[in-house]
């Protein structure tokens, strides 16, 4: 039995779905962001696996992964800064405290 692309794709899909469940169900803003990160890990794994098995020399998937990493790092930085800003005005980091948008 050899390890193929399918095994990696299944694992990536599992991680992505776990992150998706967390992003939808969690009520703390930090946990929602951590779940989004889990989804990003799934996407990265998917791209690297495709890169290894479909374009091993060109490494196209690996370059895509670099961009996904940059965007998700920006997203996490902004997200956590937003959590801090909301915490300052609402004294809470629950997603429900975002119901009031004005000031």
């Amino acid at each position, binding site marked *: 039995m*050899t*390890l193929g*692309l*399918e095994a*990696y*794709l*299944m*694992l990536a*899909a*599992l*991680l*992505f779905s*776990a992150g*998706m*469940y967390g992003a*939808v*169900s*969690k*009520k*703390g803003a*930090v*946990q929602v962001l*951590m*779940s989004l*990160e*889990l989804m990003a*890990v799934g996407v*990265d*794994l998917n791209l*690297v696996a495709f*890169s*290894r098995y*479909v*374009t*091993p*020399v*060109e*490494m196209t998937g*690996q*370059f895509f*992964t*670099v*961009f996904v*990493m*940059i965007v998700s*790092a*920006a997203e*996490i*930085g*902004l997200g*956590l*800064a*937003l*959590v*801090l*800003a909301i*915490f*300052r*005005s609402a004294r809470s*980091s629950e997603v429900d405290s975002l119901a009031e948008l004005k000031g």
Partner: protein
Amino acid sequence: MTDTYTLVAFGVLALVSVASAVGMLTARNVVHAAYCLLAVSIAAAGLFALLEARYLALMQVLVYAGAVAILNLFTIMITLRRREDAVRPRDFSWPGLALAVTFFAAVAVAVAGGVLVPGVEPDVFPGVREFGERLFEIEGWVLPFEIASLVLTAALVGAVWWSREEGER
């Protein structure tokens, strides 16, 4: 021999990453959840190394297991006033579970039924040096890479601006 070794390494890393992901979703303590995410990131770095993406394995450890994990823990620390606040009720939602299971089933059907065209396997996989050379080639990826660095700079400046006190803006 190499195949068995790779298979065992994949099994261990897959088990660790899935178990930590489940641990992150079921942990009642937010700090434990952050450490579970750290374990997922490190396992993912191991999987990248298995997939011959050595540079990305390194970046995964530096960015996710290093910087992002610290950022998560700091935000948790700042937004919790008391130690007991870290323990929260388990959030559970049937619609969320249904969505995730449906998505996984759809992907699993697509992967099982899809025809994947494997590329030509080289004798020696390109390493960090070849990766860097292709990344900074003019007709390669250098322009998107520079644009991405602008995006990251803008995002981080925005993050600093947002997280300041109201009066300092």
